[in-house]
C-alpha cells in the first residue's frame, strides 16, 4: 500500500512537471530567479536551525515586513536562522504541490489565505491543530482568519486585507462632491469627475482570482451570493460595471490590470476613485501628490467585502515543524508582528490586542477598513464553495467579470455561463 502511494506520488510529481513543461514550454514567468531553497534537514532542537520561508512578496514594504518577521523570530529564538525565499505568486501553488509530491518543500509558507484548501487537499500543508490547541494566544484570533479544511486547521492569518474606496480629495473638491456613502452618490461623483476630464474609478478586471476578489463586492451589492447564486442577481451586478465602462467611468483597459496598476493610476492623480486595498497605504503616502482618503465601499444592505490576507502554514514535509511554529509565534502571530504589518504595509491586525493598540485606532486611513470589517466583512473564500472547487470558482467568476468589462460577452451571457459553471461546482 505504501509502495503504491509512493509510486503515485512520484508519478504525480513527474506528470505535474511534464504538464508544466509542455504547457509552459519556453515560459517561466520570473521563475528562473526563484528557485526555492530546499528545506532544512538538520536534526535540531526546537529553537535552533534554519527555517525556510516561502513567500511571494516583491513590493519593498512587504519585503521589509518579511525581514522584520525574520528579525523578530531570530531575536526570540537564539540559534534560529530564517531564510526567506521569494516564489512568484503565479508559481507558488504549483511549486508547493510539486514539492509536496517530491517529499520536499519549505518549513513555512506565506500564501494567499483563500487558497488554503487547494494546498491542503494537495498535501502541501501540515495540520496545525496540535500547535493551535497549545497556543496560549489562540483566543486573540477570530474564527474568520483561521483556515480549516475537512475539520483540520491548516493556516492562520496574522492580519486582514480588504478593499475600500480610495478617493482623491482634490478632484472631489473640484467637482463639489463629498466622499460617497451610497451607490447613487458614487455614480453621481463618477459622472461629474468624467465631465471634468478626470478619470472615474480604477479596479482590476483580470480574468483570474484577482478579478473575482475585486468584482465580488460590486456583485454582492446587487444581491449575488455563493450561498444562493442566481442569474438575475449576477446579471444585475455585471450590468452595473458594464454601464460604468459604457459611460467612460471605468477604463476598459482594466481587464489588463492587476491590483497594483490601477492604484498606480490613482496615485498618479488621474482618477477620482480607486477600489483597492489597505495594503496600498504605503504606496499612497509615498507617491500621491494630492490629498486622499478612504471610505468603505458603498455597497448598500447586501454588499460584502472579502476579508483576505496571507495565510501562514507549515510545509507538510518540514523537517522541523516545531521550529517552524516557533518562527510563526514569534513573528507573524505575535503582537509585534501584527503591528509591524500595520505600520509597514497597512494591514489590519488579526489579533484583538494588537487591533486595540493606539497606533491602529488612531490611524485615519485604517479606520474605514476597520469599519468595513464590521459593516461588510465576509469570509474569503465563501464557506458555500466546496474546498475542491475554490480555485475553479474564482477563475470562472474572474473570467465573467473580465468578459463584461472587456466586452467579450454581454452581462446576461456572462452571467448565464458563470451560473451554469457554478451549478456544477457548488454541488
Amino acid at each position, binding site marked *: 500500500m505504501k509502495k*503504491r*502511494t509512493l509510486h*503515485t*506520488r512520484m*508519478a*504525480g*510529481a*513527474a*506528470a*505535474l512537471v*511534464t*504538464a*508544466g*513543461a*509542455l*504547457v*509552459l*514550454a*519556453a*515560459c*517561466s*514567468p*520570473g521563475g528562473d530567479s526563484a528557485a526555492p531553497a530546499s528545506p532544512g534537514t538538520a536534526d535540531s532542537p526546537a529553537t535552533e536551525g534554519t527555517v525556510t520561508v516561502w513567500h511571494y512578496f516583491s513590493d519593498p514594504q512587504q519585503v521589509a515586513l518579511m525581514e522584520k518577521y525574520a528579525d523578530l523570530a531570530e531575536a526570540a529564538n537564539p540559534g534560529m536562522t530564517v531564510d526567506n525565499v521569494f516564489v512568484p505568486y503565479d508559481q507558488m*501553488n*504549483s511549486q508547493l*504541490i510539486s514539492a*509536496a*509530491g517530491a517529499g520536499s518543500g519549505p518549513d513555512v509558507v506565506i500564501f494567499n489565505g483563500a487558497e488554503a484548501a*487547494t*494546498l491542503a*487537499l*494537495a*498535501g502541501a500543508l501540515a495540520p496545525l491543530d496540535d500547535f493551535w490547541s497549545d497556543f496560549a494566544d489562540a483566543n486573540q484570533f477570530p474564527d474568520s482568519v483561521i483556515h480549516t479544511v475537512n475539520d483540520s486547521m491548516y493556516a492562520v492569518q496574522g492580519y486582514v486585507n480588504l478593499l475600500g474606496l480610495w478617493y482623491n480629495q482634490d478632484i472631489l473638491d473640484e467637482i463639489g462632491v463629498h466622499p460617497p456613502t451610497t451607490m447613487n452618490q458614487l455614480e453621481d461623483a463618477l459622472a461629474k469627475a468624467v465631465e471634468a476630464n478626470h478619470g472615474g474609478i480604477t479596479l482590476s*478586471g483580470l*480574468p*483570474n*482570482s484577482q478579478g473575482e476578489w475585486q468584482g465580488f463586492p460590486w456583485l454582492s451589492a446587487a444581491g449575488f451570493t455563493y450561498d444562493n447564486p442566481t442569474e438575475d442577481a449576477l446579471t444585475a451586478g455585471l450590468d452595473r460595471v458594464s454601464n460604468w465602462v459604457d459611460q467612460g467611468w471605468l*477604463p*476598459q*483597459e*482594466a*481587464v*489588463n490590470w492587476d491590483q497594483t496598476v490601477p492604484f498606480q493610476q490613482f496615485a498618479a492623480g488621474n482618477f477620482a476613485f480607486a477600489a483597492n486595498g489597505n495594503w496600498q497605504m504605503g504606496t499612497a503616502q509615498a507617491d500621491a501628490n494630492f490629498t486622499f482618503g478612504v471610505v468603505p465601499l458603498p455597497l448598500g444592505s447586501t454588499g460584502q467585502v472579502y476579508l483576505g490576507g496571507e495565510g501562514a502554514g507549515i510545509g507538510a514535509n518540514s523537517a522541523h515543524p516545531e521550529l517552524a511554529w516557533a518562527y510563526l509565534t514569534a513573528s507573524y502571530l505575535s503582537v509585534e508582528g501584527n503591528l509591524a504589518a500595520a505600520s509597514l504595509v497597512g494591514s489590519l491586525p488579526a489579533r484583538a490586542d494588537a487591533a486595540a493598540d493606539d497606533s491602529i485606532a488612531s490611524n485615519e486611513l485604517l479606520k474605514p477598513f476597520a469599519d468595513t470589517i464590521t459593516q461588510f466583512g465576509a469570509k474569503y473564500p465563501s464557506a458555500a464553495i466546496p474546498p*475542491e472547487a475554490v*480555485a*475553479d470558482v474564482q*477563475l470562472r467568476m474572474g*473570467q*465573467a467579470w*473580465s*468578459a*463584461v*468589462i*472587456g*466586452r*467579450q*460577452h454581454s452581462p446576461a451571457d*456572462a452571467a448565464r*455561463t458563470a451560473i451554469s*459553471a457554478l451549478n456544477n461546482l457548488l454541488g
Partner: protein
Amino acid sequence: MTTMTLGRRETSRADRRPGRQLRGDKRAHKNSLRRAVFLIPGIALLGLLGVYPLIQLVWMAFHRVTNATINTGPWEWVGLNNFTQGFQMGETGPAISRTLIVVAIVTLLGMIGGFAAAAALRSSGWWSSALLALMVFVWALPPVVNGSVWKFLLSDNGLVNAIVMGLGRSAPVPFLYDTHWALASVAFVGAFAVIPFNALVFRAALLAIDPEVFEAAALDGTNKWGEVRHIMIPSVRPTSLVLLVLTMVYAFRSFDFIFVMTYGGPGTATNTLPFLGFLQAFARFNFGYGAATSVLAVVGVFVLAVIYARSIRKEEA
C-alpha cells in the same frame, strides 16, 4: 558507375582474404557497440525527460487527477471524459479556433517578415550589421521581458497609441483589451519575436547563393524585385519548408506572450490551447483536464514534427 566498380573490386579482394574479412567484421561490430554506448546517455535522458513524462501526460489525460489526488492517488479512470468535457463546456473548440488564428498570423508575418529582413540584410554594410545585432538581441530576449515591453508599448498610454493618436485618431486603439484586437496583438508580438530567427535562417540560405548568379542577372537587366522573385525565392524554397514547419510549431505553442500580456483575457478571448491547458492544470488544479488539452496540443505539434522530419529528409536527399 565508378563507385560500383570499386565496390566490386573490394568485394572480390575480401573474398580472397577471409581472415581479414572476419577481423573487419569484428572491428565493425566493436565500433557499432562503442557507438551504442555513446548513445546510452542521450537515450536515457530523452527517455527520462521526454518519453516517460509524455506517457504520464497521456495517462493523466484519461484519469481524474486533481490537486487532491495528484500526489496521493488513486487516479480514477474516466476514459475520454476529460477530452469531451472540454468541448461540452465550450472551452476546447474556441481555444482550437484561436490557436489556428494565432498560428496563421504568426506563420504569415513570421515567414514574410523573416524573408524580407534576410533579403535586406544580405548586403554588407554597417547598418546591416547593426540591424543584425539588434535582431539577435530581440531574438535572445526572454519572452517575459519581450511581452512586458510590448504590454507597455500597446497600452492606452504607450508609445504605439501615442503615435496613432498623434496621427489624428481621437481615441486609443484597444490593442490588448478588445476581444479581437487582443488576439491579433498577442499573435503579432509572437510573430515579431520569431522574425529574427527566421531572418537568420533565411540569410544563411541567401548567402549560399553564388554571387555570380546575381552578376549575371544584373547583366541581363534584372531589377531588385526580379532578383527576389527569380533568384532568392527559388533558392530558399527548401529552407522555407523546414522553417515554415518550425514557425508553425512555435506558433502552436503560443503561451508566454498571452500569459504576460492578457492572461487569456478579456474574459477568455485569448485562451489558446496551451493557455487553456495551463489554466485547467495550474489555475483550476484539474490536472486531468489540463493533460487532455495538452495532449491535443501535442498531437498538433506531433503532426507538424512528422512533416518537419520528412522535409528534412527530403532536403538532405
